[in-house]
């Protein structure tokens, strides 16, 4: 960890001269674009608040009913504002934070790609569009997390995030397609209206499981929580962006989006409540154990995601309002705090909790911002965080199914949040000055203006909650619940149970904060005694996958030709055979075929020849037996009206026997084959009989059905008038299908040339000399 953190800084310093100046301007358009989008989206606010829904569509794959369509309602607009707002702040900040980095321009490319992907995801109306952007966020986050690609840890974290969220994405794709099948449309705007039909559909449970798998992996719910803290390998502005408003919120967005369609069943309520509550409490406990400020913040993000999931499990309006408000609160304070930690790291050279202290005098502005963001995180009035927390308690108590569980989890997680806010936002600035790797100086304005803006928003929305109540929260709640709702936000609700719970939370949180060092040591001890962590289990899973692949390769790719053939034939027989039975295509002949004696004789000739060729140990016998088979087949052609074929067959057969005989003179005798083991021979014979039987069954099924002779009829009618030929077969070959015949001649010519080259053996002689 320490080595990694150092390395990023050194790289930056080393390349400061060569990289700087040339592409520094890229930071500005990267900031102005999201800022302009932010203003554009903000201009839509009044229309959305009035209950409108904006819709843009472009036909994409009309034959499949797939469109490139976008939908703007309260929920997507809230997310779009968070994405562009945080995006602008992060872009501005990165311009200074990463100044002179050799891959400065690349960073902005990835960041921009990521922002576009997130915007597309939250604005998509079409399920396939949504999925494409969902995958794009996965790819972009892989590039961002692995940005410091020289570090093995960054590469591992990036791959872990890619594999885990990519696997979830696959599940999501399956879920979305099932959903479209159940709802009869790929358009979200239509699906959202058919919630009852989907819930009663037989596919509801598979849809729910698959969609939630996608959401839980993306939003780091237990047991998929481990990739997110690892994603801290990314540069700090990226972490700020990924954690506050984007990547990890994609899963939350998905659950909120699907709320009108999938929610309300026991499966939905219990899965979300339990997964969310477990994640929230577990993550806040692990967060307390961390000494690295950035890592502690990462776990608080997991906690926030758990809380949001828990509340999205509910139906009550106030619970959903709590989720939406907390979403905004969290995005504002989390981005600000990450950026502050980045400033601390940038200005002092460390972000270890124990090495920082008393920086308020040296960095007063950063200290103020940190305090504002931290107080919002802890839920002190008059910050927005307080309203969010009150709403959470109110929402928890309003959840009909399990108010006690949800309220307990919320209080516990929030108390730990209070303690963590103290650790992350206050301790570095208060108390005694400690020795830091670099002498602390106040950050330049381009670093602190962004977080200051976010923290100020947290304060002003808290003082005047009406700013967001009608314009953001209410439309979003309406969109999530799929019915018109009124939401009122206020700082003061009177003395009630939520207020009492708040007081309890603060007291508990302060108590934890006071003892956090001892608690941290205890937790560290506990952690070292755990048999395994999710992260290690993941490595075990990957190792298992690799050994499975290796074992499977050893088994299937043995390098022995016979085994390849055996597997291929056995697979063929089993696949075709089971299909025959599955589609009920087995047609056994009812009558014994009525054949003439000469036909029986030809059949007997071919059968005897084949059996002899298969069993003989003598080369000469084998060649003769093959000749017999060839002649027998030619006789069959002759008897059933194909004299041309019969003649060709005889000629070719004769020619081939001569060729084999000539070559055979130079080859050794046949040894007893199929291994000395009797078992091997029996196994081969078994597979052979199986393949033969399947072919017979297929042919019987084919001849049982009707035959379409229209092509033949055409040839019969057209032969004389169009091609002036009376032998229809000949006419087909040299006239109607002349190009095919030309191809056939070419094949024979190529085979002859290749055979000639092999016999001449030029390569061999050259190699020898």
């Amino acid at each position, binding site marked *: 960890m320490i080595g990694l953190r150092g390395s990023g800084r050194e790289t930056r310093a080393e390349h400061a001269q060569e990289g700087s100046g040339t592409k520094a301007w890229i930071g500005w358009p990267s900031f102005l674009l999201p800022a302009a989008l932010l203003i554009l989206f903000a201009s839509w606010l009044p229309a959305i608040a009035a209950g409108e829904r904006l819709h843009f569509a472009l036909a994409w794959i009309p034959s499949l009913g797939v469109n490139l369509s976008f939908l703007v309602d309260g929920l997507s607009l809230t997310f779009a504002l968070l994405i562009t707002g945080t995006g602008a702040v992060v872009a501005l900040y990165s311009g200074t934070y990463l100044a002179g980095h050799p891959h400065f321009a690349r960073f902005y490319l990835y960041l921009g790609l990521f922002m576009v992907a997130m915007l597309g995801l939250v604005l998509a109306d079409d399920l396939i569009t949504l999925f494409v952007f969902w995958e794009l966020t996965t790819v972009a986050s892989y590039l961002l997390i692995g940005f410091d690609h020289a570090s093995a840890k960054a590469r591992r974290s990036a791959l872990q995030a890619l594999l885990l969220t990519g696997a979830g994405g696959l599940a999501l794709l399956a879920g979305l397609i099932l959903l479209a099948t159940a709802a009869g449309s790929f358009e979200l705007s239509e699906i959202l209206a058919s919630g009852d039909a989907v819930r009663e559909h037989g596919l509801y449970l598979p849809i729910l499981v698959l969609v939630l798998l996608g959401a839980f992996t993306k939003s780091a719910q237990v047991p998929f929580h481990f990739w997110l803290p690892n994603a801290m390998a990314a540069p700090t502005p990226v972490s700020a962006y990924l954690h506050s408003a984007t990547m990890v919120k994609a899963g939350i967005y998905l659950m909120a989006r699907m709320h009108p369609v999938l929610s309300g069943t026991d499966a939905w309520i219990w899965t979300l409540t339990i997964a969310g509550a477990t994640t929230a409490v577990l993550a806040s406990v692990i967060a307390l154990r961390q000494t690295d400020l950035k890592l502690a913040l990462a776990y608080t993000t997991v906690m926030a995601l758990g809380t949001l999931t828990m509340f999205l499990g509910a139906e009550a309006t106030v619970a959903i309002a709590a989720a939406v408000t907390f979403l905004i609160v969290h995005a504002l304070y989390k981005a600000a705090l990450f950026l502050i930690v980045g400033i601390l790291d940038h200005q002092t050279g460390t972000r270890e909790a124990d090495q920082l202290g008393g920086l308020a005098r040296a960095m007063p502005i950063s200290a103020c911002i940190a305090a504002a963001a931290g107080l919002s995180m802890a839920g002190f009035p008059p910050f927005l965080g307080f309203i969010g927390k009150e709403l959470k308690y109110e929402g928890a108590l309003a959840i009909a199914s399990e108010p006690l569980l949800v309220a307990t989890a919320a209080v516990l997680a929030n108390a730990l949040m209070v303690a963590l806010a103290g650790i992350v936002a206050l301790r570095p600035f208060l108390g005694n000055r400690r020795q830091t790797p670099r002498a602390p100086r106040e950050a330049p304005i381009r670093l602190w203006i962004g977080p200051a803006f976010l923290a100020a928003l947290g304060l002003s929305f808290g003082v005047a909650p009406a700013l967001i109540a009608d314009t953001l929260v209410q439309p979003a709640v309406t969109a999530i619940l799929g019915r018109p709702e009124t939401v009122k936000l206020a700082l003061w609700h009177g003395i009630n149970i939520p207020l009492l719970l708040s007081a309890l939370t603060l007291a508990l949180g302060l108590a934890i904060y006071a003892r956090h060092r001892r608690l941290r040591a205890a937790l560290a001890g506990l952690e070292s005694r755990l048999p395994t962590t999710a992260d290690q289990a993941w490595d075990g899973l990957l190792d298992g996958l690799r050994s499975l692949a290796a074992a499977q390769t050893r088994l299937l790719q043995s390098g022995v030709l016979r085994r390849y053939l055996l597997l291929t034939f056995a697979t063929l027989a089993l696949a075709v055979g089971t299909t025959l039975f599955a589609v009920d295509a087995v047609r056994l002949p009812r009558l014994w075929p009525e054949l003439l004696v000469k036909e029986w004789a030809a059949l007997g000739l071919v059968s005897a020849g084949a059996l002899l060729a298969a069993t003989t140990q003598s080369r000469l016998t084998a060649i003769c037996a093959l000749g017999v088979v060839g002649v027998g087949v030619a006789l069959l052609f002759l008897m059933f*009206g194909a004299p041309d074929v019969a003649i060709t067959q005889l000629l070719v057969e004769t020619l081939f026997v001569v060729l084999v005989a000539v070559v055979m003179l130079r080859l050794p005798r046949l040894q007893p084959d199929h291994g000395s083991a009797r078992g091997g021979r029996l196994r081969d014979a078994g*597979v052979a009989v199986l393949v033969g039987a399947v072919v017979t069954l297929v042919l019987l099924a084919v001849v049982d059905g009707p035959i379409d002779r229209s092509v033949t009829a055409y040839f019969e009618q057209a032969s004389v008038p169009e091609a002036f030929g009376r032998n229809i077969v000949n006419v087909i070959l040299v006239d109607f299908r002349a190009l095919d015949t030309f191809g056939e001649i070419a094949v024979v010519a190529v085979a002859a040339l290749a055979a000639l080259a092999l016999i001449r053996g030029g390569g061999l002689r050259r190699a020898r000399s």
Partner: protein
Amino acid sequence: METALAILVGLLVAASVYLMLGRNVLRFLFGLVLLSNAANLTIFAAGRLTRAAPPLIPEGLAAPADLVANALPQALILTAIVIGFGLLAFTLVLVYRAYLALGTLNSDRMRYAEPHLDDDPKTMSQPEQQAS
């Protein structure tokens, strides 16, 4: 009639698969011969058998007067026979050449491309240029 041919094709395929699973590549070649015969007969039977006249149009007529054998599968089989011959001739030469280069017809010992770690180097055949 098609039934009898279906069973015959099954028998040919079984014999050919059995031969192809052998160690000796010459046997593999024999299996290939049987398999191309089986394939031709399959096409023939799928086009339905008839003891009727060959698909010829008598002088003075524009189309066959009575039912004649299905001409389309016959044309396909003719192409298949010739291409099959090309394949077999090439395979035969390849077998011969492999024997010259590797000194064996046993496919188990033709491990030059995919050697096994536990293969005994003495029993494993190598191209001549390596051996000499």
